[in-house]
């Protein structure tokens, strides 16, 4: 079932050889029931508003995507060529499911959608994103966010 099994052997080996940081702690934050949570999306797909600065090699900063953004306002400048873009070209929700979150509020599955969502560029070592991520956490808490949906690409 795993897509890794369906990749060419060289590609699979390349991905498996990528370095991953390890962590000594296991943080665990509790919160209210899902139906009362305020949810933000944080993606590493290298998304940003059309007029924002594109991501470059080694970028560890993030871009802001307001909750009222429409699909045509968002582009992707992730530096890797090694993943499919046609799904995103067809429907942004396959990478950034903001429309789905909005619907889940209407269905009372979640409490609300955050005022802002965020994107990093995932080809950068996550350790280099630490300072920006911690700063971003404080900003999200000020927006009363208590659930973050993290999405790779």
């Amino acid at each position, binding site marked *: 079932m795993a897509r890794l099994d369906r990749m060419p052997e060289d590609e699979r080996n390349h991905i498996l050889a990528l370095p991953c940081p390890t962590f000594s702690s296991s943080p665990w934050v509790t919160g209210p029931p899902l139906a009362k949570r305020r949810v933000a999306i944080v993606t590493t797909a290298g998304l940003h508003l059309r007029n924002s600065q594109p991501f470059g090699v080694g970028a560890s900063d993030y871009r802001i995507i307001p909750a009222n953004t429409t*699909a045509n306002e968002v582009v992707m400048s992730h530096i890797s060529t*090694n993943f499919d873009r*046609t799904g995103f070209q067809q429907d942004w929700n396959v990478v950034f499911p903001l429309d789905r979150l909005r619907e889940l509020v209407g269905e009372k599955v979640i409490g609300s959608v955050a005022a802002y969502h965020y994107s990093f560029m995932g080809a950068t070592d996550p350790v280099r994103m630490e300072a920006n991520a911690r700063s971003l956490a404080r900003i999200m808490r000020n927006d009363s966010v208590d659930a973050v949906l993290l999405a790779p690409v």
Partner: protein
Amino acid sequence: MGGLSHYLEEEGLATTQISLIREHTEIMKPPRALWVPFELGRPFGAPDNASFQTRVVVSALELLEAHNGPVMTDFPEDTPDFVVPIASLVCPVSFAYSLGERTSADLLMDAFRSEAADLHNWYDIAIRKGERTTAGISRLSLPEIVEFFISFIGGSRDASPIIDVPVASALRMAAEDLKAMYLEGVAVQPGTQGGSAAMADWFWGETVAARTINAIREICLELPENDFQLLGELLLVPRTQLHRFQEWKKDE
């Protein structure tokens, strides 16, 4: 991805994440992860399939109600795969016509201009139809990208068409936009059907644009600057498509 979840959670924010590479997630041990069997680039599974995407989103969010962790569960469904090959594509021109014999840069560039002009028409239709495009990071039009690439291949190494963006970065952005314009354009052509692999096979296997990008890649590899080297080694042609150009080279 797993790293971000640790940092955010340590700052007091509950996180749940999609995992595309189970082996990476098992090493990084984020608090909550939903492993999905989808291909890279499609973390929520299937485009234009809201109910499927919702099941993925809700499955990930429901992990927030787990009592302890780290916890990783598997999403139980695969995406509905499209198996119709893009061979049924109706092309306005035979893009890679006689390129095996016509190897001079000038002829390649003529073919590139002609092909791009045809695709431009379809790209305009795609925008009109979908009222959306994912191209735009370079802010160059398709004809401007074509002329930029032709100029670079012709020997101009220091003329970036994007203000304050070095040539190597401009080439990468323009290549991404070119691919987006081609793929969005061909997607609306009558007869086009196919999944992501077929679309990639079409672009990298059948277009002059791909051969042009590869020509740029080969030039970059011969330039001494680090940004061109990085571009040539990693950032222009996907690893899984490089074999095509090696095979073509053998044939020429």
